[in-house]
C-alpha cells in the first residue's frame, strides 16, 4: 500500500511543477505579448490621464492667476458656481447645437453627393477631387476665408451675391454668429461624410442592385430597401466620427466670432479657453473641463458601444 501514495504524491508534485512551469511560461508569454504595446500605452496615459487628474485637482481649488493669494481648497464650490453661470449654459447649448447641426447637415449633403458620385460620368475623378478640397484646406485658413472673404458685410462675396438678387448686405458673423459658424463647418465636413459614404456605396455588390432592378424595384425603392440598410454601418460611423471631431471645434469660433457678440456663439471649448487664458480663472475653467469630460464620457460610452457593435458585426460578416 505504501508505494502507491508515494507514487501519487510524486505525480502530484510533478503536476504541480509542470503547472508552475506552465504558469511561468504563460506569464512570460503574456509579458512578451504586452511589451510592444507598452510604449504607446504609457505615452498616451502620461500625456492624457495625468493632466486630467491635475484638472480635477485644480477644479477643487480657488486658484486664479490674477490673485496669487487666493489658492485654497474650496471643495465643490467651483461646480456650484458653474450651475448658476448662465454663460456656461449658453455655451453648453451652443456646443450641442453646433455639433448636431454640423453633423446632420453635412451627413445629408454628403449622402447626396456620394449618391451623385456613385455613377460613371465624364470628369468624375476631377469632381471628386474638387469636392474633397474644402476638407484639406487648413481649418484656420478656411475659417478666415469664410469670415472675411465670404461673409464680410462690405466686400464679402456672399453679400455681393445677395445684393445681386436684391437682398441687402447682411453682417453674418455678428447677426447670425452660430449659423455662420455652422456654414463654415458644414463646408469643411461635408467632404468627410461624402468620402465615407461613397466608400460604403462602392462596397455594395452590383448583383444585388441589378437583381432589385430586374425584380422591378424602381430607383427610390431600391435605395430605401437595399442601399440604405447596407449603408447603415457607414452612416453610424460617419456621424460618430464627425461628432468626435466637431464637438471640439475651437478654431472656427476663435477666428470667426471670438464667441461673440458677447458670448452668444461660444461653445464649451471656447468658453473654457476664455476663462482660463483670458480670465486666468483656473479653478472655474478646470471645473468646466471636468463637467465637459463627464458629459462627453456619458455620450461617448453610448456612441462607442454602437461603434464597437457595428465594427465587430462587420468584421464577422
Amino acid at each position, binding site marked *: 500500500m505504501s508505494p502507491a501514495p508515494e507514487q501519487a504524491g510524486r505525480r502530484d508534485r510533478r503536476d504541480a511543477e509542470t503547472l508552475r512551469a506552465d504558469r511561468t511560461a504563460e506569464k512570460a508569454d*503574456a509579458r*512578451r505579448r504586452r511589451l510592444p504595446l507598452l*510604449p*504607446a*500605452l504609457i*505615452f498616451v496615459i502620461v*500625456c*492624457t490621464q495625468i*493632466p*486630467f487628474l*491635475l484638472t480635477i485637482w*485644480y477644479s477643487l481649488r480657488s486658484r486664479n492667476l490674477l490673485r496669487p493669494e487666493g489658492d485654497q481648497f474650496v471643495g465643490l464650490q467651483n461646480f456650484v458656481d458653474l450651475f448658476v453661470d448662465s454663460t456656461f449654459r449658453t455655451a453648453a447649448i451652443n456646443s450641442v447645437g453646433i455639433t448636431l447641426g454640423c453633423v446632420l447637415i453635412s451627413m445629408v449633403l454628403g449622402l447626396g*453627393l456620394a449618391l*451623385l458620385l456613385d455613377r460613371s*460620368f465624364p470628369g468624375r475623378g476631377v469632381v*471628386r477631387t*474638387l*469636392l*474633397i*478640397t*474644402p476638407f*484639406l*484646406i*487648413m*481649418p*484656420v*485658413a478656411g475659417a*478666415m*476665408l469664410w469670415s*472675411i*472673404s465670404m461673409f464680410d458685410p462690405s466686400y464679402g*462675396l456672399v453679400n455681393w451675391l445677395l445684393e445681386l438678387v436684391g437682398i441687402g448686405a447682411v453682417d453674418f458673423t455678428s447677426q447670425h454668429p452660430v449659423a455662420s459658424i455652422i456654414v463654415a463647418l458644414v*463646408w469643411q465636413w461635408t467632404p468627410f461624410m461624402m*468620402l*465615407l459614404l*461613397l466608400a*460604403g456605396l462602392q462596397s455594395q455588390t452590383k*448583383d444585388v442592385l*441589378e437583381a432589385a432592378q*430586374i425584380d422591378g*424595384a424602381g430607383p427610390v425603392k431600391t435605395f430605401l*430597401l*437595399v442601399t440604405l*440598410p447596407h449603408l447603415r454601418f*457607414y452612416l453610424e*460611423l460617419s456621424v460618430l*466620427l464627425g461628432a*468626435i471631431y466637431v464637438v*471640439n471645434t475651437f*478654431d472656427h469660433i476663435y477666428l470667426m466670432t471670438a464667441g461673440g457678440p458677447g458670448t452668444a456663439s461660444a461653445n464649451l*471649448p471656447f468658453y*473654457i*479657453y476664455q476663462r*482660463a487664458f483670458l480670465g486666468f480663472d483656473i479653478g472655474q475653467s*478646470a471645473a468646466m473641463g471636468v463637467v*465637459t*469630460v463627464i458629459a462627453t464620457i456619458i455620450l461617448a460610452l453610448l456612441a462607442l458601444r454602437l461603434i464597437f457593435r457595428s*465594427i465587430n458585426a*462587420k*468584421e464577422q460578416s
Partner: protein
Amino acid sequence: MTTTAETARTPQASPTKASPARRPASARRRRPLGTLLTILTWLIALLFFAPVAWMVITSFKQESQAASSPPTFFFTPTLEQYAAIVDSNAGAYFLNSAIATAVSTLLVIVMAVPAAYALSIRPVKRTQDVLFFFISTKMLPIVAVIMPIYVIAGQIGMLDNLLTLIVLYTAMNLPIAVWMMRSFFLEVPGEVLEAAAMDGASLLATMRRVLIPMVTPGIAATALICVIFAWNEFFFALNLSAANAATAPLYLLSTMTSEGQFLAQLSAASVLASLPVVLAGWFAQKQLVRGLSMGAVK
C-alpha cells in the same frame, strides 16, 4: 432583411433573357436624366470649390483689389503677395510646422506599429479594453487638459518650445494610428505568419521580413493622416507657443493687422499653408478614406 435575401435569390429563378430585353429601354429613358445629373454634380462641385478658387484668385491681387466692393474679377495678376511672404519671417513658422509634423509623425509610427501588432497578431489579454481606452482619449475635450499642460510646461521651462508641441501632437495622433495600423495587421493572412514561424524565423525577423513589407501601404496611409492633423493643429500651438515655436497657422494670424488691408496677403499665406496637405490629400484619396475612419472603412 427578407427583401435583400429575396432579391439576391431572384437572378437564378428568373429567366436570364428578361434582363437584356429590359435594359436598353431603361437606359434610353435614363440618358437625359443622366446628363442632367452629371450637370448638377458638376455645378455642386464647382460651388463647393468656389471659396477655394476665390482664395487663390485673391492671393494674386493687390490689397486694394482684394477688399473692393463690388468684388474685382478682372485684374492683372501679381506675385507681390507671395514675394512679400518669402521676404518676411514666414520661413521660421513653416519650418517649425514641418519639424513638429515630421518628428511627431515618426514617433507615432515607431510606437503605433508595435502596439497595433500587440492588439492584432499576437493579441494581449483585454485587447478590446485597450482599444476602447485609446479611442476614448480622442473624445476627451483637449481644452479640459490645456490648463495643467500649460502650468506643467511653464514650470519645467518648456513653454514656447517646439518639443512640447511634438510630444502633444504625438499623443494626439497615437490612438488614431494604433486603430488604423491594427486594421492593416488584421488583413495579413494567418498562413503567411504560420509559414514564417515554421521556417523558424524569430519574432523580430518575422516582423522585419514578412509583416512590415506587407503593411507598408498601411504605414503610409497612417502617416498621411498624422501629417494632416499635426500640420493643421491650432489650439496647442496658439496656447503653448510664442515667438520661438510658432507654427504655420499662427503665421496666418500674424498677417492680419488692425490697420490697413491684409486680405490679399492673408489669402496668399492661406494658399501656401494649405498646399502641402491639399496636394497630399489629392494624390492619396483612397488612403484618406481609410485613415479618416481609423481603418474601419476600406
